[in-house]
């Protein structure tokens, strides 16, 4: 099948979803009111509550939610063939992610711009808020561990990308200095920084001496370096330690010094990445070589694991945090929530679709594909590398040499992952401090104590799972746990939307059905993996760590199910006079 045709079909489905389904939800279910005074106007303070142009807000929302996750999940899930992954991305975006992101935004706008966590307390009760906090804590812990592994893995697989990524740090600090100390603009210095990074990528691709290739320095797989670790395993260890030191510093520095200029440059990279993928696809016009369905994928069943492997790109609870955290405070007029919320989900779906196409067109034959995706473990550990090479191959359609294209795509993906890691560690620090305040543990409310706990636990989690290359290289096994916790977060938000709709006397099936589906899939997936893979009495390779983490998530999923049944079974309070709750 022609890949351009698949992209066009996907875009057409997204178009139909946006044009008709989101219109139906906006008019008949959420009943958006152009005269409703949004929190951006009601509480306008010039800091948090600021009415913002709808295109700016959509761009902000999209760049906040798009990252490495909608690339990695689909690149792994293609293991079952490209068709199941495409169907889940398309249907998930149209019927689940769109409703979820759009609904979280509307719900927050109708409740003074409050975040999902606060709304969980308000709509269900204190217990739900604590559950919510713990699920976010687990989610960010997984994100830190998985993305530290992702970056270490890409540095090892594509050593030519290291120089550009590390050059970005002093460049970002320089931009922060120019902008906030010298009162300059950020656009042109950031474009100059991006150009410098890509020049470094081109030079590093051609000059092996500039490639920071740790496994080679440590003597490769044959050489035992220390603690019984060979050169590759020790490289994972070193990169992860360096990354953890970096995120500690990055997450405790004032935002303007490093994070904002870095994110600014990385947002340019999102545009570059999408342009490479879609223009490269158009100009190279490749055929899909991966099988439509993979009958050899028998070690891990697609039902239910597909639905937790692709979280971002089909539905992601993290989007609800962004929608209700910052976007809802900046929405100028309520009807714009459709474009910003639903449109943001569609943007992420397009990124996930591009990821599937990049991997599905990489291989010269389906035999090659089956060789690379011979087991779910191979798919998980090699998925992102395959995406980088696939995107690099598409970029050759834009006359970029393959080695340079691979380096630039690796730099883009590492930058996305690093942004996610920075944000996630910072978020984890805030959550630990908040838990300290809730339970009156003063010591963990302090910045450096909370950051040390966040970074230390993340480092321990990523180093513990043993991969084929020793400890540190097995971080990818945490991916299904990341997907599950993300889906659970989405389920809580969908539950809140459902309860809100029910109390308004409206049809709540649009949010109830995706919620039930997500809860069923996460419970099924965790139950299956705990019993058949991780427990000591079932699997051939049991894992205590995954067993414990999986069990915690399973209990949380079951807890949400009970909360949902209890909340939905309750008699609705009298309809409030105002239009909020």
């Amino acid at each position, binding site marked *: 099948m022609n890949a351009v045709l698949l992209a066009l079909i996907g875009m057409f489905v997204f178009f139909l979803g946006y044009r008709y389904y989101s219109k139906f939800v906006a008019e008949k279910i959420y009943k958006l009111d152009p005269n409703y005074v949004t929190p951006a106007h009601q509480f306008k303070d010039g*800091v948090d509550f600021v009415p*913002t142009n709808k295109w700016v807000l959509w761009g902000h929302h999209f760049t906040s939610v798009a990252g490495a996750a909608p690339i990695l999940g689909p690149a792994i899930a293609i293991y079952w063939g490209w068709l199941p992954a495409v169907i889940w991305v398309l249907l998930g975006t149209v019927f689940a992610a769109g409703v979820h992101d759009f609904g979280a935004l509307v719900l927050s706008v109708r409740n003074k711009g409050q975040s999902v966590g606060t709304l969980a307390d308000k709509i269900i009760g204190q217990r739900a808020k604590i559950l919510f906090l713990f699920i976010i804590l687990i989610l960010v812990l997984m994100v830190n561990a998985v993305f530290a592994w992702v970056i270490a893995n890409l540095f090892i697989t594509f050593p030519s990308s290291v120089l550009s990524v590390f050059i970005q740090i002093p460049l970002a600090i320089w931009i922060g200095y120019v902008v906030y100390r010298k009162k300059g603009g950020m*656009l042109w210095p950031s474009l100059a920084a991006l150009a410098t990074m890509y020049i470094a990528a081109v030079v590093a691709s051609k000059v092996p001496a500039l490639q920071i290739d740790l496994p080679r320095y440590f003597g490769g797989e044959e050489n035992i370096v220390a603690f019984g670790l060979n050169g590759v395993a020790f490289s994972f260890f070193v990169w992860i330690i360096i990354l953890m030191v970096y995120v500690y510093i990055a997450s405790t520095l004032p935002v303007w010094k490093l994070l*904002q200029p870095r*994110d600014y440059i990385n947002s*340019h990279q999102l545009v570059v990445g999408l342009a490479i993928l879609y223009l490269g696809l158009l100009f190279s016009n490749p055929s899909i070589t991966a099988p439509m369905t993979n009958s050899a994928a028998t070690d891990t069943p697609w039902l239910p694991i597909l639905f937790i492997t692709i979280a971002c790109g089909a539905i992601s609870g993290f989007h609800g945090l962004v929608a209700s955290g910052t976007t809802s*405070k900046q929405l100028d007029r309520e009807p714009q929530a459709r474009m910003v919320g639903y449109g943001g989900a569609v943007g992420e779906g397009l990124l996930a679709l591009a990821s599937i196409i990049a991997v599905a067109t990489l291989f010269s034959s389906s035999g090659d594909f089956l060789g690379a995706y011979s087991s779910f473990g191979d798919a998980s550990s090699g998925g992102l590398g395959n995406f980088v090479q696939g995107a690099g191959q598409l970029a050759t359609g834009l006359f970029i040499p393959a080695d340079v294209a691979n380096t630039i795509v690796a730099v883009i993906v590492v930058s996305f992952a690093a942004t996610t890691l920075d944000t996630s560690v910072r978020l984890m620090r805030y959550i630990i401090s908040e838990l300290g305040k809730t339970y009156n543990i003063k010591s963990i409310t302090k910045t450096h104590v909370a950051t040390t706990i966040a970074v230390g636990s993340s480092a321990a989690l990523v180093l513990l799972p043993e991969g084929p290359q020793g400890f540190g290289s097995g971080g990818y096994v945490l991916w299904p746990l990341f997907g599950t916790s993300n889906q659970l977060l989405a389920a809580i938000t969908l539950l809140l939307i459902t309860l809100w709709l029910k109390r308004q006397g409206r049809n709540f099936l649009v949010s109830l059905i995706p919620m039930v589906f997500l809860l069923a899939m996460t419970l099924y997936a965790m139950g299956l993996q705990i019993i058949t893979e991780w427990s000591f009495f079932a699997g051939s390779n049991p894992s205590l760590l995954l067993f414990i983490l999986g069990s915690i998530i399973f209990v949380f999923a079951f807890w949400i199910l009970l909360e949902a049944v209890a909340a939905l079974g309750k008699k609705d309070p009298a309809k409030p006079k105002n239009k909020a709750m």
Partner: protein
Amino acid sequence: MNLKRILELYDEVLRTGHRSEILRELRDEDDLFMLLLYSDMLGIPNPAFYYTLELYPHMLEKFHQWHLRMGMDKSPLTGFRCC
């Protein structure tokens, strides 16, 4: 829409991400500065005095000249005992 406007919108999109956080950090710094300046007026002992006290010997002579210049024979502040 011309190119300049498009670039302005693009710049705004990319800045929006951390705008509130930076403004909050700035507001916190301003609040701290205000507190250091005016805390005594609010009945809060000013910790900055511990440090500014060290300036006392350096300022004493200048202060004495200033109050003479202003037509005051004696120091108008009880804290400054220059004469």
